[in-house]
Structures are given as C-alpha cells and as structure tokens.
C-alpha cells in the first residue's frame, strides 16, 4: 500500500509517494539520495541512521516514513546550515573524534540536538545523550573532547 506524504528535509519541502512499510531511512537514502545518513544495523541499535525530527534525534531505520508526514527532518547534510551544527562538525574533525567516520553523521546530529537544548551539558549528560550511538573505533574520548570544545568555545589544548 502506498501513500503520499509531505514533509520538510533540511528546510526544503518534499512530497513523496511511499510504500507503507518504508522506513524514513529508506526514503532519505534511496528516494532522496541523501547518503550521508548511514545504515549500520537496521535494528535501531547503532545510531548511524540518526536524523532530527522537529529537532529531536531519532533512529530513522526503525521510524515509519508515513509518520513523518507534516514534520521537519534534518539530516547530516542539513546540519551545517546551523551554527551549532557547523561548530560540532568542525570540533569532531579537529579533536580526532572521527576515525572510520561511519558513525560520525549520527553522532554529530545527536550532539547538535543536545547542544541546541542544553548548551552547557556536563560530561555525564553528554555520555548519556550518546547512549544511542555506537562508535567502534574511537573509544569515545575524542568525541567527548569534541563536545567539550564546542561547549567551552575554546580550542583543545
């Protein structure tokens, strides 16, 4: 069964005819061709597919595309439109928070959302906010460093 939906992606209006079983991730990657959002597990576990819906991070691989009708979606490609998003991208790169980079879009989207709501989180708050994102490469230290850089507004020593 297919249905028509309208929503915004990175600030632009989209109307799509979608299969009822399609996930938001399918639509983003396959229909819209935005491959910055990654598919790591399709089980809602790894967080590589994280996007923002109305500013809140969700795992798009388990989010039914029909439910996004009328809402606003921001993907990694749209994150650099915002000042916070740009600062987070820069800080991840600078602090060594990126290794293979496959988890990176999901982390950056999650951190950008966190800092929009809470510009000065404690390290524990950051760790908890990242509990839905798995990074197999970094051991998280340099990701935490990156967040610290954005929060403090200072370069890492």
């Amino acid at each position, binding site marked *: 069964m297919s249905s028509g939906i309208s929503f915004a992606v990175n600030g632009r209006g989209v109307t799509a005819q979608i299969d009822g079983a399609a996930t938001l991730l399918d639509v983003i990657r396959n229909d819209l061709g*935005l*491959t*910055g*959002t*990654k*598919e*790591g*597990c*399709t*089980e*809602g*576990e*790894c967080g*590589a597919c994280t996007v923002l819906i109305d500013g809140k991070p969700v795992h798009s691989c388990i989010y039914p595309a029909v439910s996004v009708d009328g809402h606003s979606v921001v*993907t*990694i*490609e749209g*994150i*650099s439109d915002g000042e916070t998003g740009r600062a987070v*991208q*820069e800080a*991840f*790169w*600078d*602090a*060594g928070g*990126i*290794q*293979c*980079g*496959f*988890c*990176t*879009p999901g982390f*950056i989207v999650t951190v950008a959302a966190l800092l929009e709501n809470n510009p000065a989180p404690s390290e524990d708050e*950051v*760790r*908890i906010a*990242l*509990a839905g*994102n*798995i*990074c*197999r*490469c*970094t*051991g*998280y*230290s*340099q*990701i*935490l460093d990156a967040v610290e850089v954005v929060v403090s507004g200072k370069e890492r020593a």
Partner: protein
Amino acid sequence: MTIVGERFRRTDGEPKARGEAIFGVDYLPQGTIHAVLLRSPVPSGRIVGLDVSAAKAMPGVRAVISAADVPDTRAGWVLREQPLFARDRVRYEGEPVAGIAADTLEQAREARDTIRLEIEETPAVVDLDYALSEDSPVLHPEWESYVPTLGEYPRGRNVAAECISDPEGVEEAFEAAERIIEDEYRVQRQYQAYIEPKGAVAIYQGGRYEVHTAHQFPFNVRDRIAQYLDIRPSQVRVIGHTIGGGFGAKLDASIEPHACALSRAAGGLPVKIVNTRTEDMITCPSREDAITRIRTGLDKDGNMIARELVVIAGNGAYSGEMPWLASIALHCARGVYRAGPTRVKSFLVYTNTAPTGAFRGVNGVYLYHAVERHMDHIASVLGRDRREYRLQHLFEPGEVLLNDQVLDDAGILGEAFDAVEEAAPWEERLAATAGPMKGVAIGAAWWVTNPMPGTATVKLNEDGTIGVITAATDNGSGAVNLGITQIVAEKLGVQPEDVYVTMPDTDAAGFDAGSQGSRTTRIVGKAASIASDEVIGKIKQTASELLEAAPSDIVIADGKVFVAGSPDSGLTLGDVAMAATWSVGPIQGTGSFLTPFPDFNPGCATGLMFPSFPTPTYHVHLAEVEVDPVTGAVKVTRYVVAQEVGKVISPNGVYGQVSGGVTQGIGYALYESLRIGEDGRYQERNLENYRLPLAVDIPRVEFSPLEHPDPDGPFGAKGVGENSVLLGAAVIANAVVDAIGVPIDRLPITPEVVLKAIAAKHSAAVA
C-alpha cells in the same frame, strides 16, 4: 620537525563530518542490480536437493547461481579448502549455497524464498575438546587433498593447524618444582562489529572483473577471487572505497567473489551485495573461541621454573589465515616474564561454526588474559605483591626467547612499568581500592609490527602539491590520512592538506599487504619516505640549475625551494615542478619496503608459521574497577596505558588508536559475548543482544607514549594501532577478581558471571 609529531586534522575528516564521504555500501553505479545469498540454515549437513527453477522465473530476476554454475575450485588464504558455494555438504550456518541477482533487493529476496533447498542434517561438531578427540566426525574427510598456498604445515583430521614446541628440560624442571599451579581459561568469540556491514559491487566487463569494496586488503580480495573463479589475478581489478571499520574482519574476501560470479551470470551488469547485520554477524571471521590450559612449576622460593601452555582454539569450518597464527602461542606463552623451560602446544581445530579470523590483537588477547590471570593466581598463592612478582620475573635487555629471538630492547618494559607507576603509583592505588568491591590490576605485553611489504609512488604536481599513489588502506586508523600524509609532508616541506593520497586500486598501485598488524604507517610510510627522497633529489637537481647552485646547497621548506641562507630568493615547488616537467620530465619517485623477520631457531617448534616478531613493541596497562554487588555490573573507573611507539607521528592518531583499542579490550572483558550454542548456532544474532561498549561505559584512557625510534622506521615509527587491545581482558579480569575475591576464569565477565561468583563465595563461606 614541524609536521611529524604535531597535531593535525585528518585529511579525510571534512567529508566524513559533512556526510559527503562515499563508503563502500554507498557506492551505486548506474544500472546496478542487487543480489542476496541463500545461506545454509544449519551448521552441518548433506545437500540432497537444490531447486532454483522457480526463483529463475520470478519477476526482475537476472541470475541465480549455485555450485553447479561456477568452477569446481577451492580457495583459501593459507589452505585451498573452501568452495564458493557449498557443493554437497554444508559446514556452518550461513555458508553460501546460492546467489540471486534481481533488479531490486526486494525481488532478489522474494526469489530467494522460492528456492527449494533440502539438507539432511548431520551432527554438528561444536565442542573444542570433542573436535580434537578420535570420536568426533571429521569435518573435511578429504582434508589430505587440500592444497596449501605457502607450503605444507602440520594438520590432520579436525586439526586445522598445530604448533608444538617441546624442548629438553621441561619435564625435569616440573619434577624439581616445589609446587605446581594450574589454571584453565575459556573465552568466547568476539565480533569485530564495524558499523559499516560488508558490501561490494562487482562488474564483469571485457573478460575482467572490476570490484568495488571497502576493504582492508584489496590485493587479497583480488587473489581470492582469482582462486575461486580459476582465473589469473590480473583479470581482477579491486578498487577501494572509504571503509566503515574493519578491525581484521575485512582482510579476506567475503561476498566479493559471489558478486563477481553473479555479474558474469547477469551479462555484466553491476551486482551489489550488502550483508544484513545478522548475516554479517553470523558469518563474520570473528575472534576465535579458545581454551587455554596453563601450568607453572615454582621452586621453594616461589620463582617460576617451568611452564606449560596448551591452547585449543576454534577455527570454524574453514581456515582463512588462522593456521598462520597458531604459532603466536609460542611467542606469548610466558607473557613478558621468565618462567624456565617451557612447553607449548597450540591446536587450531575445525568445528561446524563460521570460520574465525583476524581481530585486532590476534590470539594475543586471550593468551595474555591467561598468562596474566595465572600470574595473579601464583602471586596470591604465594602471598606476594602482584606487581613486585612481575618485576622480579620481567624480561631483561638481551632476553633470549623460546624461538631464540633476542630482545635487545626488552628494557623498555621496565620503563613502561615506571611510566605507569608515575601516573598511578601501585601502593597508592592498592590503598585506594582496598575497600570492598573495588579492585586494581597491572599487566604487561610485547607485540609485533606486521612486516609485510608495501610500496608508494610520490609525485610532485605542477602546482606544487604532492600526490601519493599507493594501495595502502586507511581503515579509519588515520595510518594513511594522518600517518603517511604527515611523513610525506614533513619530507617535502609542505602542509598535510597539500598531500593527496589515492584510494587503493590494484591496477594502479603496487602490491600492498593491507591494513593489518599496525603496519601501514611504518611500512608504507617508509616506502613513501624512500620515494620522497627520490623526489627531493630531482627537485634539488632541477633547482640547482635554475638557481645556479650546487644541489647540496638547495633547501626545500615551507613549499619553497631556495639556496641555503637565502629563503627569500627561492622558487616555489610549483615552479620547480613545471621547469622539470618541460625539461627532463615530471618529477616522481617510488619506494618499497618490508621488515625482515628477526633471526630465530627453526628447530624450536613444529608448525612455526609465524616464526618471530619483527619490530617489537612493549606495553604496560593498569585498570581499576568497581563492582556493584547487587546488579553484578562492573564499572571501569580508571585505565592507564604506557606503550612503546617508536615515534609519535600523529598525536591525534596515536591517542585515537589507544583509546579505541582499550575500549575493544574492555568490551571483550565485560560485555561482548558471541556464544555458540550446542546446536552450532550463535546465540547472539544482532546488535541488540551483542552488547558493545557505549560512551557511558568507558573512562578516558590515561596514556604515556614511550619513544625509542626504530632506525628502519620512517622517523623512527613502529606499529601503534593494534596493540592497545592486548591487555584489557587481562587487567580487567584481574581487577574484578581483586575486587570480589573470587577467581573468574572465563570471558566475558557479565553481571550474571559476577553475581554467580559472589554467591558461590558466600555459600562456600557458609558451608
């Protein structure tokens, strides 16, 4: 030096941060069709029926192939034993039986569902001891006919490989011992769990196969495809893409050969295969399950005077590179401590499970776990301080090992203990963790830097930037995008952002042995450094004519070329490149490098396939934990590392490797459990129940790099990436035992294991 040793941003960081990087699974050329594999649902059986006719008639289907449609060959890294599709027997759950390519993924899946596969199940061989016994069925009745690729080695029945060293004097030493301490440790498999699942696109065109894959070792993929398809390697071109992690699991071919065969069957259309997460997990060459039995004889003063180590490790149904690694037990049997005459028996055994393979710290993690747990056991029996007991037996400079390799630089171990002592004084930490449910432990290791060959071509572009052509891969570590890049930038006096390194392409670049064993920065960095020297010579030659000075007086720095003493009156690198191009021809140079194996005694063991450890590095780790007696959860509260690196090329890169490796070690120690059920199937089958370390679990690792530059390495570099995983299981297990006061002899130490151990202690106390 202005570039090497300084903190730079990785050159591939920006596209990764912006979501622009195209990873292997993102690659989708025009006209691609999609394929899936029909995999064996059972771990052991005989194929009695396979009917694909309905699948061939399904909508959108372009090709359906199985063993009958491909050459009757067997392929393998070390032993040619594995068919592309199971022919008459299946030997593990997930073994490919057929491949289906269709216009869409859904169509391929629907067609797969119509295939009638009949398998007569046979009992699965699962238990390692049973597999070794004479009673067990033989997985490969035809094992004698299999052809080894690098010369024959000891194997037989269900023994995929063995390494045995039984020198004189071991029995006598045990007889002379005052007491003997014995332990047995059991460990599960560990899944590499890279976040990008395996995938590939293959295109058959003009009699050749073009393969796009995000792979750690493109030349190995090329060679494996050639074996399976019975063609020569140069008929395959493998092109690398950005890799979403590998950790050893992407060193051998997996679905690439199937994609090749399907593309040919589909008339040359590009065929893409991507594993689902469950498929990826249950067929992944995970870290092997193992049983380690260790015995030590002690004299009346408590000195270690005799050692025996027996390891039985799970090979799974086919060998991959595992036989090559069975001899690592010989190199780790004593850890880094003197223990008298030592006997080592290492068996790699076939079971009806997915083939195991390389995972960062191959074999070492559970060998060090066994040795270091055993050391703590001995110290506790003797009532000795655990650190002091280690120092008393520590390898010394000039240490002669079981294979007669000599460690001239083993004194670095003492320095590493000192560095950890400075960060976390032992007596102080003992006092700090003296309370109930807190524990601390220390352990040490040595390790190899993979010596295998690599090559690079360095060219000076006409705009003064630098190009590096190599098949070296950056699996995320930064070995290429920081390591090689910073080395070349330093040599040629440019900024790292002006160095462009190609992605691997087996047609375009010389052989490279892949991103394994921390080799890339050292081996390919050195090759690129040699190539840079050739470029420097040519720059100086050209500039000497332009500037009318002797080549030896020409200086290259900050993108400029000038006569020593007059930096302001020079040329740009671009000027020199242009001048050379239109006079003598473009400037480029090439370099190749490998590390020879250190001398060893070939008679010290049978099956010594990994004979000695080139470019050794040394490591000391300390961990502190807190145990929650109610939930059984273990929290790692502190983790300290001192590690010999040769020379830090990139501080960001080195710390990232240490932090990442330690985290995988913590995962292995506490959470990650890939259990094989009695039926031969994995019990954990997705990331929901295969628990990976999260940001909330991991402390910031405290790290002291030790630098003893290696004269053969580029700027002194040794291997860095792999080693930090080696001691996590060892020190965390010992710290947990210290905290709860009960031995735990298996991994992972999950909350259930902790609670059970605490309960056993209490009931023992009551009884």
